[in-house]
Each structure stands twice: as structure tokens, then as C-alpha cells.
């Protein structure tokens, strides 16, 4: 039928359009990062590394980059630790208020990031703790926690309890069982969770912008500031470098664990 053929063609067109759009976005940034001129003449006529030199030669950008990496790493550890423990308890124990706590931990996802950032700003300001680096870590942890939680919880509920029971019959206490048997068996989820927590913290702008001070800036905050002044391929260079890191993380995750684990965590 002709209508069917037209419909199919149109749909295929939409699919290609959408996927291209998704791929195109980071690619354009990458191309811009290699452009030779300051003025964004698109597409660029030749390749140049000057913007990368600019980025790596800029102490303030570099330091923001380092701060971002450092904080994101801390947040990754914090969210994995807290998130794993919380999801284990919810997966294995029966107790009143389980649903409530589950909802509480996942709440920050539906919560507007801007609102959370502002709330934290207001909170820290009124309590006098403003401009402490710990604020950033706390804010980013709260953002990252739900992602870790949503990867770990199905891992634990899906883990056959007989392994842990067998371990206990062999003489291992609950704690020993947790470290010797349970955790090794959910290794892949732990890795996926860590990556998601790291990414959430590293890329965050909406919450971080409320909590940084002029001396301590994260990379996203600084880059956004530059962007408001106009197009500058140095931003592209920094962003491309970041994307590279994300790709590496993605590949690592895929090799060890597989994409599905990440998907479980990122899904709404």
C-alpha cells in the first residue's frame, strides 16, 4: 500500500534525523575544538590544536578541571558507599516505612536541580556555613545518590538469597557474608553506579552554580560563565576533553559490565 510505504519512509526519516541529532551534538563541539580561527567559521578550514593549548595553558581552567575531577571522585565514592548500603537494607530487610525511605532517596530526581541548589544556598547561608567546599560535595552527592540507588537496588533484589544463606550456614556472619559473597557478586553494578555518580557530579551545573565561590569553581560552572560571554573554542576544547573522559568511562563500563547496567540507572 502506498500510504504504508510513505509512512514507513517518513518514520525512517524521523529516526535517522533524531539519531543524527544525538550524535551530531558532541561531534560539532569536537570539530569546533579543532578549528583554527577564533571566529567560529563553521565548518573550519583546517585543524589546529591551539584551543587545546589554550585550555591546558590556562591555570584557572585547569584548576577548575582538577577540582571537578577531585570532587566528582569523592562524590562517586560517597554515593556508592551510601547508596549500596541503603539499597542492600531495602532489598533484604522487611520493616515499616520501607516505601517512604525508598521514595525519599529517589526524590531528588524529580526535584528541580535549580530548586535544590537554591535551597542549599539558602540553608548554608542562614546557618553561616556558606562558601565551604563541603557544600559542593554534599549537593552533588544528593544529586548522584538516586542514580547509584537505582542501579544497586535491582542488583540486590535480583541476587538469589541462597548464596548469602549458604555463606552463613558455612559460618560467615552477616558482615563477613556481605563482603565475601554479596559484594563480589554485584561488582558490575557497583562499577556502573560509580560511573553514574561520577558523571552526575562532574557534569552538574544547576546545583553547583549556587554553591561555588569565586576561588573554587567547577569546570561546568566556569565554562558556562565563559559561554555567556560568547563563543570561544577554548570551551569546546575543554568540553571535548571532558567528553573523551566520558567515552573512556563508557568503554570501560561496557567492557566490564555491559551497557544495560548503566541503562537501569539512567532510566527515569
Amino acid at each position, binding site marked *: 500500500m502506498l500510504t504504508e510505504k510513505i509512512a514507513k519512509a517518513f518514520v525512517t526519516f524521523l529516526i535517522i534525523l533524531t539519531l543524527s541529532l544525538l550524535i551530531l551534538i558532541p561531534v560539532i563541539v569536537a570539530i569546533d575544538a579543532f578549528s583554527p580561527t577564533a571566529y567560529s567559521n563553521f565548518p573550519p578550514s583546517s585543524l589546529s590544536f591551539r584551543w587545546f593549548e589554550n585550555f591546558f595553558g590556562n591555570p584557572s581552567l585547569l584548576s577548575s578541571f582538577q577540582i571537578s575531577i577531585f570532587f566528582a571522585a569523592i562524590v562517586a565514592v560517597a554515593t556508592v558507599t551510601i547508596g549500596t548500603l541503603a539499597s542492600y537494607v531495602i532489598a533484604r530487610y522487611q520493616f515499616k516505612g520501607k516505601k517512604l525511605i525508598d521514595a525519599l532517596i529517589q526524590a531528588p530526581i524529580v526535584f528541580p536541580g535549580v530548586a535544590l541548589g537554591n535551597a542549599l544556598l539558602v540553608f548554608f547561608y542562614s546557618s553561616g556555613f556558606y562558601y565551604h567546599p563541603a557544600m559542593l560535595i554534599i549537593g552533588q552527592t544528593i544529586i548522584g545518590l538516586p542514580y547509584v540507588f537505582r542501579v544497586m537496588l535491582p542488583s540486590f533484589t535480583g541476587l538469589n538469597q*541462597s548464596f548469602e544463606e549458604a555463606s552463613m*550456614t*558455612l*559460618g*560467615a556472619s552477616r558482615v563477613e557474608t556481605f563482603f565475601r559473597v554479596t559484594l563480589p*557478586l554485584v561488582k558490575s553494578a557497583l562499577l556502573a553506579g560509580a560511573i553514574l555518580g561520577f558523571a552526575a557530579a562532574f557534569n552538574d551545573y544547576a546545583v553547583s552554580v549556587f554553591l561555588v565561590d569565586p576561588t573554587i569553581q567547577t569546570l561546568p560552572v566556569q565554562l558556562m560563565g565563559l559561554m555567556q560571554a560568547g563563543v570561544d573554542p577554548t570551551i569546546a576544547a575543554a568540553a571535548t576533553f571532558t567528553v573523551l573522559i566520558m567515552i573512556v568511562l563508557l568503554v570501560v563500563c561496557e567492557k566490564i559490565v555491559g551497557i544495560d547496567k548503566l541503562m537501569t540507572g539512567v532510566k527515569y
Partner: protein
Amino acid sequence: MFDLELKAIVKQYGKVLAVDELTLSVNSGELLTLLGPSGCGKTTVLRSIAGLEKPDKGEIFIKGKLVNDTPVYKRNIGLVFQNYALFPHLTVFENLAFGLKIRKIPTPEIKERVKKHLELIRLPEIQDRYPHQLSGGQQQRVALIRSVIIEPTLLLLDEPLSNLDLKLRVQMRVELTKIQKEVGITTIFVTHDQGEAMSMSDRVVVMDAGKIKQIGAPREIYDHPQNRFVAEFIGESNVFNGKIIEKNQFETKIKTNGDLTLVALNSEKKTQDNVCVTVRPEAVKLSKQAPPSKNVAQGNVEAIENLGPYIKYHLRLNDDSKITANISYSKNTLAYKMGELVYAYWEPGECTLI
């Protein structure tokens, strides 16, 4: 002193009473089987002994010590799971060494024990393999010795053979019993498979709906079921309801509801008592002519099942009740045809009165 004692164990899950005032004692070195249909509570009892379930009421004593509040990992029991639960991330050696490492046994001794136990199950070469690289039967045996190697007070087995195919299952029955006797450990076995229970156990505990229906040696349970459930659950039974009309010191005469007169040996029941008479189908013989027996019933062959080593004849008797006879098959045996009128007969000694 008994190795294991259960006193009035009660366990309820919501509205369901899984275990109902269960009391049991197990002797040292014995292989005791909990046998019953799904949902009869046997697994709940086993898990309570292990400490994985806590009974609502009742006491559990292991070697005389009350263990109700002792956590699982302090009870020193070995539990073999139905799905084996071998740790997938550890090699066979590490699986076996697991319990020993926890007990802080020195490495040379661990190596020694693992070697000895692998020889016990005749798999000396598989130390470095991972569970997913083993066959079902191999996994089962490794799971077994993983629990035995820690030298527990009790060995508990939760339907360990149900995941194996038939031939392997039968093979493993013999091997399990052999290992158990060799190691000498008190063992509690849970199964719904009669064949396993009968062939392996020193004693069988028949359970239904959370209660014990009968305890005894396999032969005892088979020959002398004490109630209707056991009579029908263990093996097959032809069942007749009736009343005792006459008895003397040698024989008891029963008139069934279907108007048959049956004769059983002496029993403790009295005249006018309502009884259930059960006869095993393998005790029922068939003949074309009226046989000289005290228990005779006449009927038509309604169905024939050719089951290999024997043929099962379903007869509909004159009073419309049914009887089955398992006739051993060999090439010379006389075969009966569908619809044929035959006599079924059996010795008084084959009747059990319940």
C-alpha cells in the same frame, strides 16, 4: 543424648500454619528423611533447624543445647541447597575452603581436607574450575562436600537431587547414602520423592499440612501405615471402607460399604468399629476361575496400563467400587483383556486395618 531435638515447633506465615506443634528426635549418625507433598512444612522445619527461619513457638536442641537464639553462622550445621548455591565467583577449591577459612583453619590443613574430600566424591581434578564449568551432578557433589568439609554437627539436605535427571538421581542416591555412612554424620534429608526416602533413610518422617503423620523405618511405614494419608501417599493402595462384623484371636472379618466380605489378620480393633481396609496393588492377584482365597472380589477389566516391569489392571467390581492389581510381567504371564470378567484375590495378611 539425641543429636537433634525439636519440641512443639510452630511456624505461621500470615494465615497459613506451616508447622503445627512438631516434635521430633534424631539419633546420632542417623539418616532421617522428611517426606511429604509440597507445602507440608518440611522445608520450613529444615530451615528452622538451620536457623534461617525462626519458629514462632517451640524449642530446638542441637546436642542438648538450646539453639533458638543462636544465629545461623554459629550453629555449625551444613546445609545443601536445592540449587546448590555454589559461589559463582569462587573456584571449587575456594568454595570448599570457604567455611574452613572462616574458622581460621591453617592453609596446609585446608589443602589437605579439600584433597581428601574431592577424593571422596571421586573428582580430584576439578579444584581450579568454576561452578558454571561443572555438570549438574558434579555441582551437586561439590555442594555436598562443601557442607561436610566443615565437620558440622548436623547435615541438612533440601531436596538436593530434584534438579538432576532421573538416571543421575538414582545413581546419586546410592552415592549419598554411602558418603553419609562413611562420614558418619547425622543427616536430615527433605524430599517429596518417595523412592529417595525409602531407599536412603534409616527412618522416614511422613508429613502433611505441618503435622507428622507417621515416623518409622521405610519397611515399617510401607507395610503398616497408621493412617489413610500414609497409606495413600506411600506407594499405592486400594482402600475399602467398612465395619468389623466379627473377630476372633486369628482373624477379623469386615463388611465393606460395597457389600464385600474381607478377612484380615488379628488386630486391636473391636467389633462394630468403622475401619479402612487397605491392600497394596502388588498383593492383588488375578484369576479367571474362582480362587480358593478368603478375600475375593469379582469384576470387569476397565483399563490396562502396560508399565514395563508390571501391568496395572483397573477392575470395576460388582458393587461398582474399583480395585487395581499390579501383575508382574514376564513373557509367559497370562494377560487379561479389556472387559474380561476376572477374580481378584489376596491373602488376609496383606490387609492393613486403619
